[in-house]
């Protein structure tokens, strides 16, 4: 597990976190591998994990009848994905699918949630990081909403 601790400690997402917290988090983690086209999680399932993508690429998508799967965003090496375990009702809102062989560290959300409730300091530190992540995602989503490439313009 030493490599797990090392990866997590060096990950920018956890940068500046106290060692004891990192130790705790490491305890919640495990190495996982997803083959191409394997789902990390499915819409509606219980959300129990979040993932540090060590290598590879996944796609967040949803399925629209008559249109098929629509990809919303991609996550790749170095990204963090999944926060539905943090917010009731703890269900995934989208599908996540590996588009290539993807290695990740999966952290047990339930375990973390319990710890965060107990240890507000850790809770705050993690929430702060997730808030930043959400803000980034929100900005990116807004940009997508702008339809910035000007698809609807007219002369």
């Amino acid at each position, binding site marked *: 597990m030493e490599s797990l601790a090392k990866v997590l400690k060096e990950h920018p997402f956890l940068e500046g976190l106290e060692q004891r917290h990192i130790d705790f988090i490491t305890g919640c983690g495990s190495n996982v591998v997803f083959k191409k086209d394997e789902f990390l999680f499915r819409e509606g399932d219980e959300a129990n994990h979040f993932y540090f993508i060590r290598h590879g690429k996944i796609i967040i998508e949803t399925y629209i009848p008559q249109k098929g799967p629509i990809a919303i965003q991609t996550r790749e090496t170095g990204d963090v994905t999944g926060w539905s375990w943090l917010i009731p009702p703890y269900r995934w809102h989208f599908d996540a699918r590996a588009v290539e062989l993807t290695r990740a560290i999966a952290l047990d959300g339930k375990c973390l949630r319990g710890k965060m409730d107990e240890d507000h300091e850790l809770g705050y530190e993690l929430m702060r990081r997730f808030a930043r992540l959400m803000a980034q995602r929100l900005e990116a989503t807004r940009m997508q909403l702008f339809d910035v490439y*000007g698809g*609807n*313009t*007219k*002369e």
Partner: protein
Amino acid sequence: MILVLESGNLQSLFDTLISEKYQIIGPTLDNSALIYDEITNVDDLPVGYTDEQDGGRYRLVKSGGKKYFDYVVGQHTWKRYLYPPEKKLFELKRKGDGFEIVENKQEIHKRAFIGVRACEIEAIRIQDEILLEGPYKDADYERCRQNIFIVAVNCVRPGGTCFCVSMGTGPRATKGFDLAITEIVDNSGHYFLIESGTKAGEKIMKEIKGKEADQNAIETADRLMKEAENKMGRRLDTDDIKELLYRNFESSRWEVVAQRCLNCGNCTLVCPTCFCINIEDISGLEVNSAKRVRKWDSCFTLDHSYIYGGSVRTSAKARYRQWLTHKLASWIDQFGMSGCVGCGRCITWCPVGIDITEEVQAIRESEGKGKIMADKEE
């Protein structure tokens, strides 16, 4: 050489110009209004007429005097002749899979402009700079501009909305003319003081029935113009004007003036320096012919700033701000000179009397007030 021409001999100037094949364009009356049109005779000039001007108000008044040039500038500008309001640039005809261009070959007259005021000379110079001195020339303007003979008239009576002194463009014509006239009525009679500014001017001067001016006449002219300077109808403080307007992009004053502004475009179309044009590509019923037309345009229209999807400047506020800031500030960055010559037309001919000098002053004062407030708080 400076000549004195008795008022009775003014026709000799006209005759000389006509014999030199000039078409004379000058002030005349049409339908009880002052316009610039083709004239041939001194009687065509608005003899004995003067004008009253104020924001949104112009009245031609019969003074009964004998002066030929007792009016100031009217609504027309020389731009009408140099850069006409509407001009077909060329026609095209379909030919096989392609087309051919039929050029608009128009005979362009040698023209003499009579009664050009100092501010108007400056306006012509500004348009020269824009249309001839940039990376690209307007070929049509160049053709119209060639062979123009300018007879300036110095202003001894400024109009109610004039502020050429502020802009450093008048009332005396100092350059850019072939001949410059000062009309004087005094104890010694009614006469014109004429000086030449070019060789062409000198040549004409030799032909007219004048005599050399004495010192007295020259001094009288100087005095009259000094007096005129002190009687300007308006004043515009140009100190730091560019930065002032750039700084005040978000001034609340723009909202205030937008309440009044009709965004009708009148100010831009009577302005002697405004150069915005539209290019219209038109096809006929016979889909085999087409033409390109150049028309005066205005930054007060929505189409002016139209790009795919809509206009950039949709609010009246933005359009007024664009006009005023361009005229007095960004023009300086673009062409190294102000776009305003202080002729006052935009004030007089604004249907609701919006006054550029007042707007600038308001912005200046609002800024001052802002500072004072801030100081007090400190």
